[in-house]
């Protein structure tokens, strides 16, 4: 899979993962405090934060695997810099990454419009929710409560990760720093 990637694309992916690993970790702590008060549902509406690197990496680099790999790397780095969820977080990353990646795969890695990005946010929300359901033992909770949780998470995934990721990347594009990557290439007229 990585054969056709340029080294600088992989390094960019790693840097994005590092940056967002820090952000992710910060939000874990925010969420944790909340969660102590109002239970696991506290995480749901900010859950999109934890998918954002997938969307940004895929949108900028536009290669198969970017969404998946960035999320897994971010999770791994998050673990190493001190997320006490530990190795499990990598599994979470894999699952969320697959969810986001699916959206890009379905569109043949050809389209990176807003709706595809939002779909990716939704995909990550869906797979990650399935995981929470099993590991967090949500069977124990009432179905309406579970449904509310899911609705919140999906919306958050689409807005924070999908829309937010696009806005952030477009702002970065304007600085000229993405000149050598696929996102900038798309907008350039060759002649």
């Amino acid at each position, binding site marked *: 899979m*990585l054969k056709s990637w340029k080294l600088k694309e992989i390094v960019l992916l*790693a*840097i994005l993962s590092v940056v967002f690993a820090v952000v992710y970790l910060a939000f874990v702590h925010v969420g*944790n405090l909340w969660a102590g008060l109002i239970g696991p549902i506290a995480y749901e509406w900010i859950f999109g934060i934890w998918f954002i690197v997938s969307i940004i990496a895929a949108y900028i680099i536009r290669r198969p695997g970017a969404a998946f790999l960035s999320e897994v790397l971010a999770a791994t780095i998050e673990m190493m810099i001190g997320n006490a*969820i*530990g*190795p499990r977080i990598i599994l979470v990353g894999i699952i969320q990454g697959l969810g986001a990646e699916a959206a890009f795969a379905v569109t043949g890695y050809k389209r990176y419009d807003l709706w595809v990005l939002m779909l990716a946010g939704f995909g990550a929300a869906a797979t990650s929710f399935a995981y929470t359901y099993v590991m967090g033992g949500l069977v124990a909770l009432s179905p309406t409560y579970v449904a509310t949780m899911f609705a919140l998470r999906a919306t958050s995934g689409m807005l924070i990760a999908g829309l937010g990721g696009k806005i952030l990347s477009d702002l970065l594009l304007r*600085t000229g720093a993405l000149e*050598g990557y696929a996102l900038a290439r798309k907008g350039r007229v060759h002649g």
Partner: protein
Amino acid sequence: MTFHEMNPTIKFLTVTLLMFGLAFMYNPWTPLAVFIGTLILQILFSNVNWKRWGLFMIPFLFTALGTLWTTLVFGKEAGGEVMFTLFGNDVTVENVMLASTLSLRVLAFTALSLLFTLTTDPKRFVYSLMQQGKLSPKIAYSVFVGFRFFPILKHELMQLYETHALRGVRLETRLDHIRHVPNLIIPLLAGSIRQAERIAFSMEARGFTGEPRATYEVVAITRYDFLLASLLIVLFGVSVWIGI
């Protein structure tokens, strides 16, 4: 023979395996036993900084509590004798068992995680993933570059403040500095992206091709690794047995 010296990949796999197993145990005793057992192993075979351990543990105590009472209040209707009523929800014995299972599970997960994180050097982990786990060197070295970025990011941020000061942005108080942060985020990210690109160039210019390679740092596998892994697995087996 300590967890610090243990091969990180093997340690990682064992700990993950245990966590997975735990997810399928629905009685409070297994996670409790794993929690206590992990602590004992950690005391025996590693040099723990308990202050750090405690610091990492605190947020998860909150989570465990949150889980406990959510499961009690929003728990599914379950048969059995009602013990007490909480916010209008009838709480049965089964509810209580389940709630304590889930919150103890949070604690057991955390103890296992800390066993891994507090005894693993990130760099060594990546080297081991590359050497034993067949991780692509391109990714491994990109992650090293990523690690190098923590100090760089901090430095870049200070640099940005200096740049803005030189270009006439006046920030007098600490509050001014904090208020200025949103104006720095995009330049900070953009700067990091440019740095990343140049580092990639340098790697290539140094002859890095991304093929499997020899490294100076060698992370070996010894029989102690298997010994420690078996200890953890035995711990899990015993805990399951306690639960029955």
